């Protein structure tokens, strides 16, 4: 069953930059999809359009059979709570505790008067702690977010998204700020969660070796256009060169260029 269907999706930013052009794509429920392309190809815009952080200019997006282009404010918040997002720069509040950062994922489940007073019900705190446990950093719950390493901070980001109990996970370059061993660990976490919970997951990456290692399906974007959609196993180096519009270099591979390979 399709969970995400985009038809003729186009995004033009104020100022005239066309970030996405007439994209048609479908994603099956439970898929683990890697979105590849050069920076500026529209990967980030695609993810942000799916949770409406960016407004589509043309076309429709259907999620779970419902068109999400014209949700009203309340429906939009409700919808966003079903879509977890993981960011390149983690987007944690550095000065707040890890637990408090993860509790942000429960905001939609708890009445606003309670969240504003910081009075989360016991079961929501338990839920947040169990999300931290799933990414292996429960013991860090009371630490300040900026006391953690980059890999641990991204795990807090994943736990926050998990706390939303989402149907879809969107990860926007989740490993771009991390070293190679940590990158693999975070990708394995995402893959494990996808397999255990069946949450449909879209991950933006620009490293082709990571894309091939973890992706079941690959979406290739070039200059805002969809140029590939299909199983990862069928993506050859020639196909990557077509997506990138140039020959593949060492910079396109995480483990190339003599960096640590663990």
């Amino acid at each position, binding site marked *: 069953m399709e969970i995400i269907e985009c038809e003729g999706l186009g995004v033009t930013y104020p100022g005239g930059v066309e970030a996405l052009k007439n994209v048609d794509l479908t994603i099956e429920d439970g898929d683990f999809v890697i979105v590849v392309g050069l920076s500026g190809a529209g990967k980030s815009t695609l993810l942000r359009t799916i949770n409406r952080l960016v407004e589509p200019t043309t076309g429709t997006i259907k999620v779970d059979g419902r068109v999400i282009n014209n949700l009203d404010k309340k429906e939009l918040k409700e919808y966003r*709570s079903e879509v977890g997002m993981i960011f390149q720069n983690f*987007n944690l*509040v550095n000065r*707040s505790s890890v637990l408090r950062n993860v509790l942000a994922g429960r905001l939609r489940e708890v009445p*606003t008067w309670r969240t504003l007073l910081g009075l989360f019900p016991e079961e929501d705190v338990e839920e947040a702690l169990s999300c931290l446990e799933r990414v292996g950093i429960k013991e860090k719950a009371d630490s300040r977010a900026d006391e953690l390493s980059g890999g641990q901070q991204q795990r807090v980001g994943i736990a926050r998204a998990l706390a*939303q109990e989402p149907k879809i996970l969107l990860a926007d370059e989740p490993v771009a700020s991390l070293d190679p061993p940590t990158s693999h660990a975070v990708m394995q976490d995402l893959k494990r969660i996808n397999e255990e919970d069946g949450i449909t997951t879209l991950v933006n990456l620009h490293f082709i070796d990571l894309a091939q290692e973890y992706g079941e399906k690959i979406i290739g974007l070039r200059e805002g256009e969809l140029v590939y959609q299909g199983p990862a196993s069928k993506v050859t180096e020639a196909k990557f060169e077509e997506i990138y519009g140039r020959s593949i270099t060492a910079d396109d591979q995480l483990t190339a260029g003599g960096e640590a390979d663990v």
Partner: protein
Amino acid sequence: MSNSAAEEKPSRFMLVMGKIKGLLAIILVAIIYIWSARGVGFSLIEIIGELPSFFNLLWDMVPPNWAYSIRLINPLLETFQTAIAGTILGTLLAIPLILLCASNVNRNNPLYFASKGFMNLMRTIDPMLYAAILVAGVGLGAFAGMLALMFFSMAVNAKLTSESLEAIDDGPLEAIEACGGNKLEMIKYAVAPQILPTFASYTLYVFEINIRASTVLGLVGAGGIGVNLDTSLNLFRYPNAAMVILATFVVVVLIDHLSNVLREELV
């Protein structure tokens, strides 16, 4: 004169022009200065001529009237109560204004520009001018002084904090939005943790300004120790005036220092 020649190296003509510009700038500053000095009747001869009477005045102030200090305790307390109440009320009023004046929190453009305009308008007025206007409105006394400091604190705090707020990391704001959080939750979970230390520091800074301003509010009839200074000077009671100045100085320095220590703790 061709363009290409000018680009290759500065010509002699350009060098001379540069020197003339420099000279013209100095002459212009000198003219503005002379115009201003004449306007205020500045005269070196007059300063030297008046020096003896100036020293006579200082001499009249020594020794200060120590006994008068007992009667300054209540006015001093009133002065600082004015500053404290003005700062607290102004700070509370500043909170909504700060959020309205930050483009990353308030994305409603007309409301943003209206709030910013209001804040800048309020900020152009000096606390003494507020006090003079308010004394006419609500009558003589510390209440007018407190209102004056309240308006002033609100505007200054809103200006300083909203500018810092616009420079915070927008990532966490986006994360709360992506979780489906509403505006208030975004403020509580992404904005407040980032801006609170800065806000507290600016509040103490505004408090320091208010403490100093509160000591002279009495000169326009808005209460506090300034009233005693005004009266002592008008009645030529220079030892009393000296005592007022000395007491004000000592207490202001103490509070300023305390506030500074607190502010350093915050950063």
